[in-house]
């Protein structure tokens, strides 16, 4: 009996000890939890402080650009261009608005250059987010991953130069829902509610270029198209003045020819390569041409290619195609012809109208394609393909016949029930 009592009391005291231990453990846990909670709060506060510090520009706005050489004046070296007689009035840059479409490898650097040059207003368009996969390019930093490109760019650019008015639009311009807004912004986004002074295309796909081309043709807006090839070793810029120069759909895209045979280019398993160097060079050429155009110095180039493998820069002037696929382009050609017959005659530079008869007789190879020589437009430049409909595809004419009596809804229903 006493053994039983003894055993019970031992159990009780064991249980008490255990309870005490658990209580202590619990207290420790609670303390630890409290500690981490507090630590989290402190860190959150710290992040908040850092963020607010980051968005607060280091310097305040500067009312007028001065050429005074003091270490606090960010414009002295730019204003020196005026003293040296390169530019007549550098300060004019503050009156100009530039729209940059696409804030990727080329567009972000382009925006940074324009911001550092002190352009009046920048309008940025992009629908993409910053990703770690973008880090082989310039401008964006890893901690910006996940942010929209335009917003991340605005933060960085405002910090670099608070004098530049920056507007951003986070959408895809090729969408029907956004295109009208895009056109309206180009048409009225200037500092005085006028159209922007120039549009810079820094997009990476044909569809977006065609959308910009359409908008600018309709508005008669001057723009510069830019691009880096998918193999990352060539690039180009092309000034498009609707009606005066070839638009983007006047001819198939031009390709800066490298000595690499395109047929040997290995595209298996990969879409596109990219190099920060080529993108940086193209952004530099693009902004240089923009500055020359806006501030009226030097010669504004119409087409400039960059072949990185051979360090060759083909140059070319392109006249519009009188049979262009874009009606808005044809309209602008008419306006230009009426407006500037004199200027037209004064132009003496080598120019080419890119329509079919100028491409020469294409030699059909065994596969039914054309050889690259036939597509050449000048040394180091060729068309991506021909528009020769006759000898290429041999698709039989098999035209759709729509049942007039069936409504679209019914046709769609029919399709869904297949």
């Amino acid at each position: 009996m006493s053994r039983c009592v003894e055993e019970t009391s031992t159990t009780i005291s064991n249980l008490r000890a255990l309870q005490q231990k658990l209580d202590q453990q619990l207290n420790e846990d609670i303390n630890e939890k409290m500690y981490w909670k507090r630590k989290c709060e402190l860190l959150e506060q710290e992040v908040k402080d850092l963020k607010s510090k980051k968005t607060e520009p280091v310097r305040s706005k500067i009312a007028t650009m001065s050429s005074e050489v003091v270490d606090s004046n960010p414009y002295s070296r730019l204003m020196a261009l005026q003293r040296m007689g390169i530019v007549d009035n550098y300060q004019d840059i503050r009156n100009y608005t530039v729209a940059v479409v696409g804030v990727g490898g080329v567009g972000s650097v382009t925006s940074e250059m324009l911001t550092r040059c002190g352009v009046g207003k920048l309008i940025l368009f992009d629908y993409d987010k910053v990703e770690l996969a973008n880090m082989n390019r310039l401008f964006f930093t890893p901690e910006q991953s996940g942010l929209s490109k335009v917003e991340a760019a605005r933060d960085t650019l405002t910090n670099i130069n608070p004098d530049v008015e920056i507007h951003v639009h986070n959408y895809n311009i090729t969408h029907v829902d956004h295109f009208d807004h895009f056109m309206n912004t180009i048409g009225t986004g200037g500092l005085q509610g006028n159209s922007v002074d120039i549009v810079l295309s820094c997009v990476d796909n044909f569809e977006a270029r065609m959308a910009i081309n359409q908008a600018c043709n309709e508005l008669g807006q001057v723009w510069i198209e830019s691009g880096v090839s998918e193999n990352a070793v060539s690039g180009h810029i092309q000034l498009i003045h609707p009606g005066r120069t070839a638009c983007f759909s006047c001819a198939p895209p031009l390709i800066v020819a490298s000595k690499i045979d395109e047929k040997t280019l290995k595209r298996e398993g990969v879409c596109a390569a990219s190099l920060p160097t080529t993108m940086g060079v193209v952004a530099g050429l693009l902004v240089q041409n923009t500055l020359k155009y806006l501030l009226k110095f030097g010669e504004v180039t119409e087409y400039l290619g960059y072949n990185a493998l051979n360090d060759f820069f083909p140059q070319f002037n392109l006249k519009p195609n009188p049979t262009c696929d874009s009606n808005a382009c044809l309209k602008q050609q008419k306006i230009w012809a009426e407006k500037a017959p004199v200027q037209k005659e004064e132009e003496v530079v080598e120019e080419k109208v890119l329509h079919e008869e100028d491409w020469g007789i294409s030699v059909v190879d065994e596969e039914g394609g054309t050889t690259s020589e036939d597509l050449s437009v000048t040394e180091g430049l060729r068309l991506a393909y021909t528009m020769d409909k006759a000898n290429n595809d041999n698709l039989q004419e098999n035209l759709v016949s729509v049942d007039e009596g069936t409504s679209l809804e019914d046709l769609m229903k029919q399709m869904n029930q297949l």
Partner: protein
Amino acid sequence: MVDAATKKTLAAIPLLKTKAGPRDKEEWPMRLKEEVTSLIKYIQNNKEADNDWLRIQSNKEGTRWFGKCWYIQDYKKYEFELEFDIPVTYPSTAPEIAIPELDGKTAKMYRGGKICLTEHFKPLWSRNAPKFGVAHALALGLGPWMAVEVPELIKRGVVVHKDDQPSGE
């Protein structure tokens, strides 16, 4: 040039007549009727050739399209959701077809899961605009892409058939 089989498939898809994009309010509905008629014919052709591989539909405005495409290997059906928008410059410019669920799984894709087209696609599309429609884009763009990329994705184990996935997923 595209291979003979694709060429034959293309030739059997009715070509469209109306040159209109989604911004042409008046003519777009007619173009849409042509698109849908052509697509119905294409899907029927596929069924007859024992090569049924996709279903597709659009929103009411015909500007956003979505559907399913599948690939059969070793008697197993691998199915994917596809989507694309009709760009404002359509039909001069082809739609960019995307399979978002494969985004990041293959290098033959652009951001957002847009498929990487062969060098033949754009010249052929441009030369045949505005007669080519959605059915042609699928036959010339997505079909060949699937035929090359899906077996590769299966081989690499990136795409696993739903019956072969570990339980609990």
